């Protein structure tokens, strides 16, 4: 009886005024601190805004958007990159309907990004603006297709697999097709190259990392030794050195007329490097699985492979999502080191832009800030996706 009378209504959530009074103006020294902080914020933001909107000269960026986006990709072939992005937009739209959740957020982001390109307030070719309009449209078309009988997870997965091939064909060209001439990978650059390097590194390093982690915990001595050696050697060497090895030492052992594609070299180096770190991240997750889980799996009659694939890995991977995504973000930013193998990725394109016009030589601050902002957008997207994934899987709430 007493207990029921003790239950009171919980306090109403504080209104803005009450919150300010309570947290900012409660005592005389809090008032003082608030004032000082306000003045500080005012002057800093005034300075920053003034610089961004009045002092800074953004012409190097607005007039070199093509360079930043695709680097040296032949101008008359840029439509192929645009088409590849449209393809991706379409499948994001489709997947939005099929899977929903975070995919939907990214589909929306793609649509909004495309629309933003269409209304950018500087000189852009009509083709680019058309592309900007087409992008949200294709997201919508994808969504509508997703509502038909094609909106099944397996069709979406098949579509993604096919789009990978389609994108590759679009970007590199197809032998014997006159309207898709070969584009040397050396001409890939800018955001396109940064994105491809990171994507291939992420997609390829994940399975290799899982296998290495399993191999390192294996009871077969040779396999264990190989995996341990690989992981420890690669982790003991800086990425710069690995890239140097691939770019400088590899050609020493190849005949002079055999040349490994430079983009491929960078992809190889980054994949191997990331895989070694990935393996250690995943091993952390594997070790955290209580042995009772494995014993229970055996007790219900699962064999070793089933135990690993159905019981151990799903739990282990879920546990290390933050570490894995951290690794992906680091890999994305490590793509800037690809300059060592002679690739003109986003940062290097920035340098080239600064040097492409004498009037821009002193505008390095603007260019580097822009590149920093682009990197932030993509790394934040990854970080956001991982947070959503963790929430969906209920990590940390059990």
């Amino acid at each position, binding site marked *: 009886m007493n207990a029921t009378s003790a239950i009171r209504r919980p306090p109403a959530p504080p209104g803005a005024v009450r919150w300010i009074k309570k947290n900012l103006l409660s005592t005389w020294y809090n008032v003082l601190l608030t004032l000082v902080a306000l003045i500080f914020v005012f002057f800093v933001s005034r300075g920053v805004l003034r610089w961004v909107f009045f002092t800074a000269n953004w012409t190097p960026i607005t007039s070199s958007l093509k360079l930043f986006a695709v680097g040296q990709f032949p*101008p008359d072939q840029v439509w192929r990159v645009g088409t590849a992005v449209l393809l991706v937009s379409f499948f994001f739209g489709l997947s939005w309907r099929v899977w929903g959740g975070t995919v939907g957020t990214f589909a929306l982001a793609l649509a909004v990004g495309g629309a933003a390109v269409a209304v950018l307030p500087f000189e852009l070719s009509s083709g680019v603006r058309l592309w900007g309009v087409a992008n949200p449209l294709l997201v919508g078309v994808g969504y509508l297709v997703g509502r038909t009988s094609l909106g099944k997870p397996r069709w979406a997965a098949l579509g993604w697999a096919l789009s990978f091939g389609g994108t590759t064909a679009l970007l590199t060209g197809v032998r014997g097709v006159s309207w898709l001439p070969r584009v040397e990978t050396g001409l890939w650059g800018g955001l396109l190259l940064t994105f491809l390097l990171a994507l291939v590194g992420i997609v390829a390093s994940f399975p290799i990392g899982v296998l290495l982690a399993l191999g390192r915990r294996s009871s077969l001595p040779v396999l264990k030794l190989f995996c341990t050696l690989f992981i420890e050697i690669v982790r003991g060497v800086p990425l710069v050195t690995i890239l140097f090895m691939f770019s400088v030492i590899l*050609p020493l052992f190849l005949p002079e007329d055999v040349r490994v594609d430079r983009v491929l070299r960078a992809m190889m180096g980054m994949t191997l490097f990331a895989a070694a770190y990935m393996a250690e991240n995943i091993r952390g997750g594997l070790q955290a699985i209580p042995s009772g889980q494995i014993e229970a799996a055996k007790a219900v009659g699962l064999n*070793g492979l089933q135990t690993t694939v159905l019981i151990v890995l799903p739990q282990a991977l879920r546990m290390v999502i933050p570490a894995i995504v951290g690794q992906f973000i680091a890999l994305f930013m490590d793509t800037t080191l690809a300059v060592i193998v002679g690739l003109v990725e986003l940062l290097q394109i920035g340098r080239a832009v600064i040097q492409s016009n*004498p009037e821009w030589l002193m505008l390095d601050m603007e260019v580097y800030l822009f590149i920093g902002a682009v990197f932030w957008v993509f790394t934040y997207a990854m970080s956001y996706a991982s947070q959503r994934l963790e929430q969906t899987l209920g990590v940390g709430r059990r």
Partner: protein
Amino acid sequence: MNRKRTALLVVLLIVSILLAACGQKEVIVTREVEVTRLAPAGECPECPECPPCPEAPQAPMAAGQRLAAVKGRGRVVCGVHTSLLGFGYLDSAGRNIGFDIDLCRAVAAAVFNDPEAVEFVPLTAAERGPALQTGEVDMLSRNMTWTSSREAQWGNFTVVMFYDGQGMMVRKDSGVATLEDLDGATVCVTTGTTTELNLADAFRSRGLNFTPVTFEDTPSVYGAYEEGRCDAATSDKSQLAAARAGFANPADHVIMDVTMSKEPLTPAVPAGDDQWMDLVKTVMWTLINAEELGITSQNVAQMMGSDNPEVKRLLGVEGDFGQTDLGLSADFGANVIRAVGNYGEIYDRYMGPQGIAFTLDRDLNWLWKDGGLIYAPPLR
């Protein structure tokens, strides 16, 4: 136990399938590893008394092989800069342009009659030496100073195409004319480069004092100088001219008439294939001789009818100056000049009075008969 083994076998199987599926990528990796193990073992037995192993010598290409490889490939592979205004940079469409770039295009025009038949490989300063040593590029035209050790270690240098030198930029109103006037001055310079050492040498040898203000990157050097944090800025003269073009008031700054270092910028080729080196040299000489003879990209057609035997030879109208021995067509000279112009045209395109990059007095880069150092053997 047995199950565990089966599981591991399956994992191993997956690994091998994946490796195989990755195709070329992984194959190359394994091949590379194998070679690393085998090469030293075969050549150099392990023993404490042994002298240190020489690095596995690169099998040099025999004469003519590289030209054959280039022709088979259909492109000249040229190691270049992509972010150096005037010499090797990108235009707004992403096309490689610049003084060094046009030298590559000249070679492509000579071999294929197509200045676009070039594959440009952007190289960092650290990577250019190895790229030449391994023969990965057919030609390196990347603002590179010819030095004895580079000649000994990296490859063969061809013809000096640009005489640069470390200079000093000061404000016009400072009235400084000689280094002596700069006694006690502060000088902006990039740190850890030979530029910094040359600066110290130049002042010390004259018994002058100065305060260096060092920066990691080039834009900061010029930014600080323009803001007035230093009395002078030093770098190669071409770089000073480029930086000055970006200043708010370029006319307020002068590049002093002092030269603190010799920087002969020279295209280089991998060692071993003399025919290829001779070919590149001949193309460079053709550019220089064309300016000397007054042949430009505009007047090639008229010059074909010239009475001057030297002009006729260069354009392939009559006679032979060895081009067929080098595997070039008789009229390659006409193709080159038509495609990229003569030496002076290339210079003026980027660095002349109306140059699209900046303006730099030709100075040492005038032809020998105009008081410069640009001189080429006769084509005969």
